[in-house]
């Protein structure tokens, strides 16, 4: 009785506490340090005597630590004297302001002055409330690496004089795109692990979904936020069917669709409706493609013509060779392998995806469907050599061997 889990409270409160403290002190790095000190104190003192209001305790303690730090600084620089002399600032959080402050926190954590790795680490730490250990585990990097990234990021933000604010209207779109891209990087790490021997890491993907939901609640009028959320929900809905019991990947065509998470699909489709208000952006288009799959009972019953159109639209708003390759796959399903092979060969001729195992994977599949088996086999073997994920590599070799 009476035990309070520090980590659980911190997960719920971290963004609000760091946001409020940054507003209070004007110093993001100091706010984050003070909040971490409060967590460290809670880990020591709560098991002995649990506070009746754990969230309030964390906020008050972090605030005290922030004031201590300012006092130390004042002694050195004789600044902030007024602030430090008046620690009786209202503890009540104004709900309207705190929402803007949490939003500002997301924008600061994803600021363009930071490296991509730093943005990811900082966002998970200050907005998501994850510890360095948890972030290290999520991205399969050593704990000191994460700590160094966060320390450096805070210095960079201070040195660049990044203001703690929701960006002005003129910059808003571009800065929001940066936030969305950080969340998508986190999601992708969970949905197609770039390293390690596991195909999926749902815990990592979950963090991205959670952050995307927060962002959607705070920026409800931004269609692409809902587009990203829809894309994440609809993609994660397929997780239960994406791996076989032995951990090997199961391709979309072979997935047992009864195992898809239909409540996640429903949430994804609802988010997609909100994303579609004024024409779809890149995330909304990708979500629409995921929705076309999610709404089909089988590969055969999938509306491939619609998917081709969506890939064409995506290729216009966010051109990329990966989109072209996916369009080729959709064209193969809608119109047969020959026109699809032409798209892939064009990609190869222009060398737009050098070294990617995906190009020979798709080319191999198309050649196999055209009955050109020896060529297909050579392509799949090439794909296996280029593929870094062990699980996927063995699937490719298996397919190549079946073409003998």
């Amino acid at each position, binding site marked *: 009785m009476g035990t309070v*889990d520090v980590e659980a409270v911190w997960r*719920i409160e971290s963004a609000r506490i760091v946001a409020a403290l940054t507003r209070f002190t004007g110093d993001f790095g100091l706010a984050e340090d003070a909040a971490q000190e409060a967590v460290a104190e809670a880990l020591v003192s709560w098991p002995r005597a649990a506070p009746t209001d754990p969230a309030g305790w964390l906020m008050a303690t972090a605030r005290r630590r922030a004031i201590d730090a300012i006092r130390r600084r004042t002694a050195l620089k004789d600044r902030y004297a007024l602030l430090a002399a008046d620690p009786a600032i209202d503890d009540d959080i104004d709900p309207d302001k705190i929402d803007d402050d949490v939003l500002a926190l997301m924008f600061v954590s994803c600021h363009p002055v930071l490296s991509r790795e730093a943005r990811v680490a900082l966002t998970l730490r200050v907005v998501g409330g994850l510890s360095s250990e948890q972030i290290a585990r999520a991205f399969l990097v050593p704990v000191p690496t994460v700590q160094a990234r966060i320390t450096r990021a805070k210095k960079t933000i201070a040195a660049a004089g990044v203001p703690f604010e929701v960006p002005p209207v003129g910059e808003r779109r571009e800065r929001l795109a940066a936030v969305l891209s950080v969340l998508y990087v986190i999601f992708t790490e969970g949905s197609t692990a770039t390293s390690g021997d596991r195909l999926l890491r749902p815990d990592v993907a979950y963090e991205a979904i959670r952050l995307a939901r927060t962002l959607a609640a705070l920026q409800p009028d931004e269609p692409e936020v809902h587009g990203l959320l829809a894309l994440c929900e609809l993609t994660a809905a397929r997780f239960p069917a994406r791996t076989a019991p032995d951990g090997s990947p199961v391709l979309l065509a072979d997935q047992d669709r009864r*195992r898809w998470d239909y409540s996640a699909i429903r949430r994804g489709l609802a988010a997609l409706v909100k994303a579609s208000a004024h024409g779809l952006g890149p995330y909304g288009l990708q979500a629409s493609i995921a929705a076309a799959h999610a709404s089909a009972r089988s590969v055969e019953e999938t509306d491939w013509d619609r998917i081709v159109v969506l890939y064409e639209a995506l290729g216009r708003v966010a051109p990329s060779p990966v989109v072209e390759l996916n369009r080729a796959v959709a064209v193969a399903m809608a119109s047969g392998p020959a026109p699809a092979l032409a798209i892939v060969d064009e990609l190869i001729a222009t060398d737009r995806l050098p070294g990617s195992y995906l190009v020979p994977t798709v080319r191999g599949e198309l050649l196999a469907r055209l009955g050109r088996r020896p060529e297909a086999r050579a392509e799949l073997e090439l794909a296996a050599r280029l593929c870094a994920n062990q699980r996927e590599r063995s699937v490719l070799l298996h397919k190549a061997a079946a073409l003998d």
Partner: protein
Amino acid sequence: MSKYMLIMRGTDETNAAMMASIDELMATTRQFIEDTVKAGVFLAAEGLDDPGKGVVVDFSGETPVVTDGPYGETKELFGGFFLLDVASKEEAVEWAKRVPAVRGSKIEVRRVPEDDEVPQDSESSGRV
């Protein structure tokens, strides 16, 4: 991460107390839901009507028997739920503590198992 259902359990007394301060309770509940939405953990929530207006379908006999609610011997009545998508059981418990509830009521915290945790039929598995 896991889904947890926070199940509200009340008695006749807590239900009466709830109705006495229903406006305030509705407002605090809306605030609680808003907090969970902004924390990115909200999935669903529903509150149920007066148990006296419900019926019970009883499978004790050969065929189901329908009787008017409430529930005979049952002391604690299911009044509604919140479905949350959280990182841990501890976090679900922490949210449960914040649910606006009248004194004397209880909240049961139950996990929704993942698809692959549901026990497979031992007869069919292992044969293929």
